[in-house]
Each structure stands twice: as structure tokens, then as C-alpha cells.
């Protein structure tokens, strides 16, 4: 028994039939409610690690354990993503045909949330992100910082335990960056979520309670 929410053991991931080794043996434990920042050079395998932690892909070898159970089958990964993980991307990835409030409901469709709850819950999440007044807007009517706040609300839609953010401030100016990080850290504290942020920004890295540096597909000691 381990007290870690997430644990990876000897994780390897290679592409192109082994010619590219993105991860070369990563071991890592992340506790419930912990805030972790991952940095490292471009190409060092940060996104690859985050995708494996979030169940978006499967390792070439090694294992990812969530609450002490190994994620192996595709159905494991589907429900793990739907129920336990929230993703925030650098490029926001909002769906352009849907209003902000509808975007927030998209993950709820993956689970059978009662229909009547969805809109109310989405609105509450947008309000928590200070975006209640923009709920009916389409993504192209929002500023970059606003889009990312909608994306964070969407990541929270199914009340996950783990929040994964791959360079969430990469497309934002410094004021918006600070705001988004404040929101994410606030969520981690208030809700007791594990928060894993991949970033290039030194400021974020310096302020992190736990910093993981990656180099050539490994965690630097």
C-alpha cells in the first residue's frame, strides 16, 4: 500500500519503433493534494510524461498506478480520464461551435450526469472562475486569458482528483499567467486536488513546493 495518488514505475515511452526514446525510465510518486511543477528543456519528455499520467496514451513499458491500481486496459483509461483527471492545455482547445457554458459541459456528456444539473453546474464553475458574465459567449469572442479560464472550468466539470496542465500559461501575457496560476493553486488548496503543471517559466518553477526537472527522458536527481 502506498499513500500516493499517482505513481509511475520505470516508465518508458518510445516512438518510431524505438528510434525515439521520449521517456527512459521515470519513477515518480505524487501524493493526494500535492502540487508539483515539471520543467526541463524542450524535447525532454515533459508532455509525454503528462500524457501518460493523464491516461491519454500508454507506456511502451513500465506502469502508471492510480490509487494503487494499475491502469492497463483502454476502458480503464477512458473512465480514468473522464472521472479522475482534468486537462488544461497550452492552446486552450475549446470547441469553437459551443458557447463557453456549453464547452464546460462537454466532459459531463462523457459520464451520465443528469441533464438538468449540467447547465447549473457549468454556470457555477464559470462563476468560480469569475467568468459567469461571459457564459454565453463563443470562444472566438473571448480574450486568451478568458479562454483559459473557461478551459479550467471545463477541466473541473467532472470534479477530478488530478489536474494536469501542460504549459497553461504558454499563450498568455504575464498578468494573465499570474492569474491562471493563482486560480490553479487556489483550486489545489481549496479542493485538495493534485496539481501537476508543466512549464518553462522560471518564476513558476521557483515558487513551486516541489520541482521535478527532466532531461533526456529522465528525472534529474
Amino acid at each position: 500500500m502506498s499513500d500516493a495518488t499517482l505513481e509511475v514505475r520505470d516508465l518508458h515511452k518510445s516512438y518510431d519503433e524505438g528510434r525515439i526514446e521520449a521517456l527512459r525510465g521515470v519513477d515518480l510518486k505524487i501524493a493526494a493534494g500535492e502540487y508539483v511543477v515539471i520543467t526541463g528543456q524542450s524535447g525532454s519528455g515533459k508532455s509525454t510524461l503528462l500524457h501518460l499520467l493523464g491516461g491519454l496514451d500508454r507506456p511502451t513499458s513500465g506502469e502508471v498506478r492510480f490509487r494503487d491500481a494499475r491502469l492497463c486496459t483502454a476502458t480503464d483509461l477512458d473512465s480514468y480520464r473522464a472521472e479522475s483527471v482534468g486537462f488544461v492545455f497550452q492552446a486552450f482547445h475549446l470547441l469553437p461551435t459551443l458557447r463557453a457554458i456549453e464547452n464546460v459541459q462537454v466532459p459531463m456528456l462523457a459520464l451520465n450526469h443528469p441533464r438538468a444539473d449540467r447547465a447549473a453546474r457549468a454556470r457555477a464553475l464559470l462563476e468560480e472562475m469569475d467568468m459567469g458574465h461571459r457564459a454565453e459567449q463563443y470562444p472566438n469572442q473571448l480574450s486568451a486569458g478568458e479562454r483559459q479560464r473557461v478551459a479550467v472550468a471545463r477541466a473541473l466539470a467532472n470534479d477530478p482528483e488530478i489536474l494536469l496542465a501542460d504549459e497553461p500559461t504558454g499563450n498568455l501575457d504575464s498578468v494573465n499567467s499570474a492569474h491562471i496560476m493563482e486560480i490553479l493553486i487556489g483550486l489545489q488548496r481549496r479542493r485538495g486536488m493534485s496539481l501537476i503543471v508543466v512549464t518553462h517559466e522560471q518564476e513558476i518553477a521557483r515558487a513551486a513546493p516541489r520541482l521535478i526537472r527532466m532531461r533526456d527522458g529522465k528525472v534529474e536527481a
Partner: protein
Amino acid sequence: MASPLSFTGFVWKNLKRRRLRSLLTLCGIGMAIGAFVGLVGFSHAFEQGWQSIYSSSGIDIAVIQQTFLNTSVDEAAGAKLKALPVVAQATPMIYNLMDLTPEVNALVYGWKADSFEFQSLKVLSGRRFQDGQAEVMLGDLLAEDLKKQVGDTMEIQGTPFKVVGIYHGGSGLEAGAVIMPLDQLQQLSSMQGKVSTYHVRLRPTPRGMSAEAYRKEAQAEIEAALPGLRAMPATERANNNQFVRMAQGSAWGTSLIALLIGILGIANTMAMSVFERTREIGVLRSLGWKRRQVLVLIELEAGLLGLGGGLLGIVLGWCALHVLAILPQTASIASSSFPWALAVEALGLAVLAGLAAGALPAWRGAKLAPVEALRHV
């Protein structure tokens, strides 16, 4: 305040995003379904016309030649038929499709002057023709079309005939037809001694026997007495008639080709839409959507295109049938009542077409690996 986002709402928004493309796809499948409703509906009306000819003149059985190539029956069969105890009446007839003028072609029947089939006709003016005379009777619709009255003469395949009567028939087919003495039509179509079919009325069904069983027995009796000939229930004969079969064959053939093109249109639209939305599909998967849900999403979009196309097609088909019911060339055949059963069938067909067309794109979309899809630029 926005209502909750539903699966179908999402589908609808995706289709609305590419409005022009969705509309064009809709038109493609709509035309196909319209052709289906129009053509098959028309051939149904044609078949019904035949059926009502049989039912209005009280024909139980039609005796025909069994082989495909030889479609005529020897006149000698008549006497043998009449001698059978189950047969009340048997009357010979010939029918043929003939050009009356360069624009008008019509069904031409050859009957005997004493045929019981006259009972279902109402003579509006003039009289019945006499056997052996170059005389014809015209259906009221045809007479109007040709602008002929009793006393006029008309030429049919080079032979002059005198119009002796105008009648109104029980079915639209009869209203647009010519009836002449059997012997005259035999000469015109070089069928001396031959007829197309014998129409038989049976004696009343004996007590304690079902009409169905009695008819079967009568069929067997007739076929035993006349080797090589076939006794067909009149109702079956109506849809087995060579003209009806030809009409049905070309209706189905043409609409299937149109449908195939419509299906390809939807398939193309959906394939493009899946390709363009590769990254969005990755996003959906990253948010926890299962493969199956992505598949259902795309299939619903395709199915909805099919459904919309089907509805459009029914409207188009309805218009086409109305036009056919008005045009003089086809008015005698097309019925103005709309074939609702066919419309329902067409709608089902359209939805199925949509689902079939969406299947491959949906499968490809569902198969995408989430990470690869997200990386797609």
C-alpha cells in the same frame, strides 16, 4: 440562459457550423429520395391501376402462358376452360401498348363484344363495338386528350377505326385506354388465333370452404386441364404483369443509382468533417469521451443528414407525383393520393443511407489515438 448541452444539440451545432456543405449534402440525398418516392410511387400507382381493373370486373383468375419468351395463349384454351365445372365465365383478351400519335401512346385492349369485362365500364356516349368491325371505344381521358368524339375516325398503326363509344373506366388505366374487338387487335398485332390471357370468373365458393382454398383448388384444376398454362390469382397477376414489372424495375434501378450517389455525398462530407476535426476529436477523448461516444457522435451527424435529406426527398417526391398527376401523358396512371407507406419507407431508407455513409468516417474518427489527434495540426 442556455439550456443544457445535449448530445444531439452538439450534433446539431456541428452540422450547422458548415452550413453550406450540410445543405448541399442534404440536397444530394434529398434528390435521391425524391427520385425514389416519385418513381416508385408512380410504379405503385400503375400497379394499383391494374389491380383495380381486375377487382372492378370481378376477375378471380388470369390464365397465362408459363414461359417467359412465349407470352401468348392459344385461343383453343377457351373452350376447355369454359367446360370446367369451377369456371363460371372465361373471356379472352389481348393488351398491348401502342403509339396512337407521335406524342400519345396508350394501352389497347382487345375484347369480345360480349365480354363480361364491359360490366365494369360505363358507356358515356355511343355504344359498344361489334366483333369483326373496325370500331373502337375510347376511355374518357384519352378521348379528351385526342379530341375525339363518337363518329370520328382515327388511325391506329395504319388502319382506320371508327370511334363508336366513349366510356368511363373503373381505374385510371382504363380511362386512358382504347378497347377494340379482339379479332381486330389480333390482326393489328399479328396474333391470329392467340390471346394474351383468359380472364376467369369462378362459380360461387361452396359452403364451408374458404375463398382462398377454393381459389387454390380452382387454380390446380385449370392447370391440370390446360398443361403448359398457368392460372394466377388476379391480384398476383396485377403486380406480375410485364408492364408493371418493367415500371418497377426501372423505378428501383434509377432510384438505387441516385441513392448510391447520395450515400457517397454523405460519406464524403463526413470524411472531410472528421479529418478537419481530428484535433477536436482528440480533445473530446482527452476529456473522457470513449471511442464509442465519438463513433455515436459522428454517426448521429450522418444519420441526421440522412433524415433531413429524407424529409426533403419526400417533399420533392410529393411535388413530382403531383406534376405527374397533372401532365396529360401520365395523368391516367398517376394517382393524386400520396403513398404514405412509401414515404415512411423512404425516410427509413434515407436514415439507413446516412448511417451507412457515416460508418467508415465514424470508425476512423473513433480509432484515432487521443495523443496523435491532439498533435494534429
